[in-house]
């Protein structure tokens, strides 16, 4: 111990010590922030699962809403409605979104390309409630609500997501692929449709899946397009339908514990769907990027 006191201490002191401590403090802060965000996710998911479990049963998935004041009942019509509306929206948004992406990455000049991408970004930034009143003004005023109008609104929300992902992935296709095809005398349109496009199937699928996950949880556009409906399973898109997000929205403001339980159950079904589709989109994206980057 005697000897040690003679040697200069290796512990940081004074200014150096302060710098080290500041560094530790900020590192700790950043780590806490990241784990805090994960903790919030865990808390929300656990809360939803916990509260949904008592309400999860066969009736929930097979029955329509119980008449006022009665217990029991289910959300089958909301599940069917959501599936049909989101399905139709996908059928609208995916083909158009892919066409836009093809134009941007295969045909457009640099200047035009920038404008279209800007337009897609702007469209992506329009609040969904504004899309809701837009479709209300465009299609609902005068003729009433219908499921296909909700699909149109959701399609508008999905369009920029599909397009942007497809543009990104088309940009990864090596130009040699196009050149090889053109050099063989294959026409441009055949090259695009039968050579380039098949290589990005995975990317298109990813973009669509991401868009579906986003659209399935959207509520605001549904308020104005499909919020007055029969209490039955409806399959005709010309009529309004119940949907999962709307059910959650409506029941969350209710004081009836039975309805609140069903809101949690509906939230569970919706969240499970959205998170599973989101995760598979991420998986698909990783796979198709790996393939294109020369895996």
């Amino acid at each position, binding site marked *: 111990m005697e000897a040690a006191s003679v040697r200069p201490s290796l512990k940081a002191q004074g200014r150096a010590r302060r*710098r*080290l401590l*500041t*560094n530790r403090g*900020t*590192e700790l*802060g*950043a*780590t806490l*922030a*990241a*784990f*805090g*965000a*994960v903790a919030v*996710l865990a808390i*929300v998911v656990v809360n939803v699962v916990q509260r949904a479990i008592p309400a999860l049963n066969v009736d929930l998935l097979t029955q329509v809403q119980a008449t006022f004041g009665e217990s029991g009942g289910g959300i089958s019509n909301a599940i069917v409605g959501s599936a049909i509306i989101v399905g139709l929206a996908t059928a609208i948004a995916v083909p*158009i979104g892919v*066409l*836009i992406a*093809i*134009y941007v990455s295969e*045909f457009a000049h640099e200047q035009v390309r920038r*404008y*279209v991408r800007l337009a897609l*970004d*702007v*469209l992506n*930034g*329009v*609040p969904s*409630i*504004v899309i809701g009143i*837009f479709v209300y*003004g*465009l299609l609902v*005023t005068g003729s009433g609500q219908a499921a296909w109008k909700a699909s149109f609104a959701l399609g508008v929300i999905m*369009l920029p997501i599909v*397009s942007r992902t497809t543009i990104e992935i088309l940009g990864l296709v090596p130009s040699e692929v196009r050149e090889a095809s053109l050099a063989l005398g*294959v*026409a*441009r*349109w*055949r090259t695009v449709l039968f050579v380039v496009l098949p290589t990005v199937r995975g990317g298109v699928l990813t973009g669509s899946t991401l868009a579906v*996950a*986003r659209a399935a*949880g959207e*509520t605001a556009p549904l308020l104005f397009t499909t*919020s*007055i409906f029969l209490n039955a399973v409806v399959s005709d898109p010309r009529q309004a339908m119940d949907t999962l*997000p709307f059910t959650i*929205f409506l029941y*969350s*403001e209710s004081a009836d514990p039975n309805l609140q339980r069903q809101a949690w159950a509906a*939230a569970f079904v*919706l*969240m499970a769907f*959205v*998170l599973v589709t989101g*995760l598979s989109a991420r998986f698909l994206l990783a796979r198709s990027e790996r393939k294109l980057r020369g895996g």
Partner: protein
Amino acid sequence: MEAISVPASDHGLDTRRRRDRYGDVALKWTTALAAAGSVALIGLIVYKVVDGAQPAFSQFGISFIWHRTWDAVTNHFGALDFIFGTLYTTAWAVLIGGPIAIAIGLYLSELAPRGVRGVIGSLVEMLAAIPSVVLGLWGILVLGPVVHDQLGPWLNTAFGWTPFFSSRPDSGSSLFTAVLVLTIMLVPITASISRDLFAQVPADVKEAAYGLGLTRWEMVRGVLLPYARGGLISAVLLGGGRAVGEAIAVTQVIGATTHGIDWNLFDTGDTLASRIASQYQGAVSNLQVGSLFYLGVILLVMSLVVNFVAQTIVRRYAIERAH
């Protein structure tokens, strides 16, 4: 495939050539039409929303923006309370969520061990995937009671001297609950953009800083943050844009009653988006519907401006970097 088959005669070759020329033109113009459609769609949205607001425009003119009554009985409508509510909740959400999100971005790009990085990054992004209506349900039934019973009284005791926490919350629905929910929505968006920005900073610049003997924090403050400043501003703006436009979750937790320009976070409030959403089936007169559309116009302008500024900064930033 036809493409490979040898044409039997010159005549066949001609038809194929012609077909291919038509095919090229057709595909080019079909896709161009779709692209033009997306641009036109924005125009149509603006036109339809402005058109719907016509009754309120002609009745109130521009003064709608600074009037603060919303009375369906006397047919007087004004937007000031909702504009304030939108800006006030968004400002708080950005103030709380911005630094947290940037810190998460730093953790993910600089601190996280390689194996953990991807997992935590994905989990943070999953937070953004939770539907807003589910977050709203959680906000009203789980977070609300916590705000009312614990957070509220505590903040009031500690910071009651500021105008922001000057009373205890009467219920779980309050501006404060809305701010918390908006913060949860904003953080993952800003965090994942920040992470990508920090990842783009060239390694040699960072290594030069370390070579000078800087600590990690000093490197972040001296190199990363200045380097990514423009991008970080737009990352925060994009998160703020999400908060400005969020309707459903806010409607569920904010209480839907305004007290004018009210700084107390434990009072109830209302925003542009949440007012439109909460009146989806309650609008009776043409004028009231028009006024809701007018709120939509204001909201659209606000979010377009925010997004446009953010995109411009990103673009300019990207161009500067390229040189």
